[in-house]
């Protein structure tokens, strides 16, 4: 079955620490990959996405993610987090030609302490 695994359910960091959130998907075909973020009290927003081309994708607020096809992974990174990055982060993928049906991971709650 198609699924997304996010390895860390809760992450706690201090400001300026580096961040890497793991994401692996289960599907053998071509996929589109996404990271969404949900800040406290706000709705889900797109952080970045990968459809094709350069496997290193840069998103908003200094985030980036790298698609490694051989590992079925799409890890999210940020070199130096800020308190305002406190949020829940969701990895997702959709199948190419699949009506944009997103399959989500369980999410990772990030808490950044000043």
């Amino acid at each position, binding site marked *: 079955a198609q699924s997304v695994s996010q390895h860390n359910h809760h992450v706690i960091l201090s400001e300026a620490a580096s961040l890497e959130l793991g994401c692996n998907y289960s599907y053998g075909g071509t996929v589109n990959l*996404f990271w969404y973020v949900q800040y406290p009290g706000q*709705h889900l927003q797109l952080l970045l996405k990968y*459809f094709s081309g350069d496997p290193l994708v840069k998103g908003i607020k200094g985030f980036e993610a790298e698609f490694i096809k051989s590992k079925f992974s799409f890890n999210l990174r940020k070199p130096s987090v800020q308190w305002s990055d406190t949020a829940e982060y*969701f990895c*997702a993928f959709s199948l190419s030609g699949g009506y944009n049906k997103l399959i989500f991971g369980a999410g990772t709650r990030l808490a950044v302490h000043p």
Partner: protein
Amino acid sequence: SQTIHQWPATLVQPVGSPLSLECTVEGTSNPNLYWYRQAAGRGLQLLFYSVGIGQISSEVPQNLSASRPQDRQFILSSKKLLLSDSGFYLCAWSGQGDGNTIYFGEGSWLTVV
């Protein structure tokens, strides 16, 4: 610009009562529309999607149904709510075609008591 709204934002309903959550999209035409449910620790689960008026696909068997009476209106319903229907429901839209970004509404908290 495109906007998506869903209501009500919160709802407390007794077991066995009906449900209607509404969602509308503005600023675009012929969108794909989705209903998701978010459960704590389990991410978001796709419940229904629609590629056009009257065209509804269900992803999981459940006590809920969806309808699309107009191009930019998507309704989530139930005739008789169960306790297990409690959760956070999100409406979303995307453009037609593959690979379009999906945009989410503010969500609706449903508590069945």
